[in-house]
Each structure stands twice: as structure tokens, then as C-alpha cells.
């Protein structure tokens, strides 16, 4: 993707430089050629030319459309991760980036990824606006409190590359930097195996799910006070007000923090809110746990060593 961005960029630079040079040269040539020192001399009484006006309105407009369309095409692909990506979660807070791998590794201001594989980072902010910027991958998105944002990239070279915060966030804004460590696949596996510690992300989520008694209402079938969460992630669900909504990261987060906002059809508004009781990292762990609740394609916690699909496999049973 980065080379696509560069190609587009240099194309626009070339086009704009061309016009800049042409107009500048004309101005200088005219200033020289028609120069006079006689204050009473006058120029030719030329008032305008409709063909010229049309030409230099329409041609730049058409060129603009080409640039716009090419840029939009690149933009779509920048904003839409491929189906198979390594998923990383992150929270931004003043003034650091916390990364969580599915296998449970936590990193601060560093992100280890394998070369040649698409990586998707889903992130939010715990306090003010930040912006996750990887200049080498030409991607950036703001971290907004209350919402999830994503960036994705595929690193093509081994090495270390910059991570910058690109939305002003106060005193240490310019200190909120880090690095992406791109490794050979084998080295990456070794790294992954080396530091899990407290279990995978979804295992942590499962722990929270039980500790906070979510499992007393959200059983594995719909007999509890709340709906079953098995096989729910990725498909639409019908709400009490008749509309339907996609069960994605944002919806799961919203249901934990403001449960009455989008109530599932057939259930009472009984769920208490966990606003203020859970850190963003805990919410992410719960989100990842809900994602892992699949009865097909090998359910259970997803690991960082396999690419995960962004949409789960079709449910086969109820």
C-alpha cells in the first residue's frame, strides 16, 4: 500500500509542479518581454476570451477528477483491511501506546509484527484525542475516546520503524512515540512464545466475564436474562425497536458501557452499566472473548499465530 500512496503522491506532485512551472515561467517571460519604463505606456486592450476561460476551467477540473478518483481508490483500500489479518488491540493514553496481542503479550510503545503479513490495529483513547501514525506504512487514524478506530498495514521490510502520535494531546505529545519491530516469521514466533504470562487476551476476557458475573445472565443459550453471546459476533442482531445492528467491536463495547442504548429484541432492559468500572484494556479483553465464542471452525481463544478472519465462520447449529 505504501508504494501505492507514493505513486499517487508523486503523480500529483508532477502534475502540480508542471502547472506551477508553466505559470511561473509565463509570468516571468511576460514581465520581461513587456516591460516598460514609460509610466504613460498602456497595454493592449484585451478583455478576455471565452474559449480560454472554458479551457482553463474544464481542463483543471478534469485533471482534478482523475486525481480525486485515484486518491479515493487508494483511500478505500487504506480504510478497509483485508479479510485475513493479525489483530492487535491498542489503547492510547497520555502519553503512551499500549498494545495487546491476542496471545496475551502486552507491549508499551513497541509493536512486534512479522514481515509480509497484514496487521490490523483496533484502538481507542482513554482520555483525549491521539492519532496513531506509522509514517513508513503511510497510515494514520485518530484515537477517539468512546470509539474504536482501526489502521492496517503489511510490513515489507525487516527493521524498526517509527510510531508517532499525530494529534496534539498536551505536554508530552512529542514524547508519545514508539517503534514497530518487524521480524522474520520465525523470530516472530519465538517472540510470541516468549512472553505470554497471564494467558491470552480472550482468556483474560473469559476470566473477567466470570468474575463480573456476566455468565449468570448471558448463558450459552437464550434461557438467561440476557441473550447468548455464542456465534453472535460478526452477524447482525435485531433490536427491540425493530432496527438491526451489526455485532462488531463497537457494539460489544457499547453494550458493556451503555447497555440500554441498543437493546436486543426479546429481552428486558435489566443489564447494569459497567461504565467507570472497567479500563479500556479490560473492555478489549471482553470484546476479544465474545469474538472467540464460536462453535465452528475450532472455537475457543484465537491466537496471534494464526491469522484471524474479521468475520467469523457461518454458524452451523442454533
Amino acid at each position, binding site marked *: 500500500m505504501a508504494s501505492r500512496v507514493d505513486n499517487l503522491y508523486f503523480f500529483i506532485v508532477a502534475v502540480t509542479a508542471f502547472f506551477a512551472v508553466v505559470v511561473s515561467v509565463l509570468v516571468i517571460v511576460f514581465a520581461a518581454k513587456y516591460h516598460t519604463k514609460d509610466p504613460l505606456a498602456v497595454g493592449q486592450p484585451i478583455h478576455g476570451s471565452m474559449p480560454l476561460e472554458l479551457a482553463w476551467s474544464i481542463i483543471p477540473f478534469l485533471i482534478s477528477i482523475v486525481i480525486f478518483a485515484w486518491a479515493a481508490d487508494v483511500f478505500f483500500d487504506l480504510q478497509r483491511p483485508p479479510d485475513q489479518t493479525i489483530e492487535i488491540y491498542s489503547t492510547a493514553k497520555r502519553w503512551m501506546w499500549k498494545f495487546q496481542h491476542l496471545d496475551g503479550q502486552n507491549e508499551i510503545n513497541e509493536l512486534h509484527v512479522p514481515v509480509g503479513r497484514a496487521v490490523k490495529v483496533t484502538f481507542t483513547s482513554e482520555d483525549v484525542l491521539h492519532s496513531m501514525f506509522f509514517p513508513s506504512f503511510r497510515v494514520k487514524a485518530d484515537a477517539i475516546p468512546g470509539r474504536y478506530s482501526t489502521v492496517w498495514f503489511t510490513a515489507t521490510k525487516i527493521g524498526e520503524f517509527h510510531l508517532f502520535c499525530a494529534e496534539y494531546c498536551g505536554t508530552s505529545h512529542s514524547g508519545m512515540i514508539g517503534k514497530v519491530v518487524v521480524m522474520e516469521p520465525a523470530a516472530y514466533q519465538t517472540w510470541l512464545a516468549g512472553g505470554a504470562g497471564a494467558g491470552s487476551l480472550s482468556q483474560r476476557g473469559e476470566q473477567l466475564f466470570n468474575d463480573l458475573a456476566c455468565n449468570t445472565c448471558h448463558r450459552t443459550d437464550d434461557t438467561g436474562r440476557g441473550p447468548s453471546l455464542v456465534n453472535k459476533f460478526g452477524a447482525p442482531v435485531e433490536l427491540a425497536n425493530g432496527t438491526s445492528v451489526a455485532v462488531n467491536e463497537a457494539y460489544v463495547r457499547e453494550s458493556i458501557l451503555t447497555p440500554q442504548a441498543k437493546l436486543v429484541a426479546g429481552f428486558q432492559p435489566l443489564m447494569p*452499566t459497567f461504565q467507570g468500572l472497567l479500563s479500556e484494556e479490560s473492555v478489549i479483553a471482553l470484546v476479544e472473548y465474545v469474538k472467540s465464542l464460536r462453535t465452528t471452525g475450532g472455537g475457543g481463544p484465537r491466537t496471534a499465530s494464526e491469522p484471524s478472519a474479521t468475520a467469523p465462520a457461518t454458524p452451523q447449529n442454533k
Partner: protein
Amino acid sequence: MGDAIAVRGGHGDAHAHHHPDLQHHFDTLEQQHEAATLGMWLFLITEVLFFGGLFLAYMLYRVWYPVAWAEASRELDIVLGAFNTAVLIGSSLTMALAVRAAQTGKQRATVVWILLTMALGFVFLVVKYFEYKEKFEHHHVPGPNFVFAGPEAGPAQIYFSLYFLMTGLHATHMIIGFFIMAVIAWMAHKKRFTPEWYTPVEITGLYWHFVDIVWIFLFPLLYLVDRAGHFA
């Protein structure tokens, strides 16, 4: 570019024909009057944009949080709100009659109608005072002391933030209007206005009607959200 021909003459001979209310940079009373009314209309357009920002925020959040909006709106006193609406519309009527009186040279009637307008506006503000007081007592003023039962407390606080911002801004405009009307009433009392020149009364009227129209939007948007109870 221009040929200068002595058409209207310079400063000298015009004084004899100068209407006392004609300002020196204008050529005719008509030009001056048109400038003044155009200026006031442009000013009112800026006021539309000024309130507009709040209306935009209101619209966005109402679409996002219809339940909170319904619940919070029901906390407002619809009787007082409707009464105030009637009072303000009445004050627009008295203001229009003041302009008419000035237009027809009735100096004393002009003063009376302006004072009535101010009185009605004052009634509106007194009612508003009691409404705000009640909101304060119920802890519906946004901030650290805000209390609202139920899960909609967060968006309800946003509703009340907008309620106080919008009605507060409106009330501020009314208070400014009072000062303007006091000046105009005084000028009318001093018999400053004639059928040829009553522009200040007219543009004050425009301003006051604008203040009224803003309220006519605020009343249903703030007081009448889901009174029929569709959002339970």
C-alpha cells in the same frame, strides 16, 4: 474612471435642505433607511447562524438519544412553556403596534406600546427564572451536581446542557432587547420620531420579532419531545 460633475454639489448649499435626521454620509433619507434595514436583516442572519450551531448539536444528539431526549423533555413544565410562548407572541404584537404608531406619528402610543412590550418580555423572564430555579432544585443543572434517574443520565445531561445554552442565549438576547427598547422608548417620549424617520423603532421591531421566532422554535424542540409517550 469617473467624470466628476457637480450634481448634488458639495457640502455648502445642502444644509438648507438637510433633514435633521439625515446623516452626512448619506444622500437621501430613503438611502439611509434602506441601509439601516438591510444592515439589521444581515445582522439577524448572523444571529440565525449563531443559534444554528446549537440547533445542529441538538439535532445530532436527539437522533442519537431519542429516549433520553423524551425523558428529559418531560421534566420541563409544559404549561409554563406554553404560557411563555403566548406572552412572547403577544409582545411581538405590541411591538408591531409600536412600529405602526411611530409610522403614523402617534408619539405617546409608541411609548405605551414599547413599554407594554417590555412588560410582557419581563413576564417571560420572570417565568424563566422560576423554571430555572426548579431545575436547580431538581439537580438538573449540568455539572458535578447533576442527578438524573435511570440509565439515560449521560445523554440527559447533554440535553440539559443544550437546554440551558439555548434558552440562556435566548434570554440574553431578550435582556439586550430590553436595553434597546428602553432607549427607543425614551427617544419616543422625547418626540424624536416622525413618519419620515422612525427607523430605530422599525429595526428594533425586527430584532424583537427575531427573538420571538427563535423561541417559537425552542418551545417545541425543548418542551414537546415525545409528550405522546412513544419512547415510553
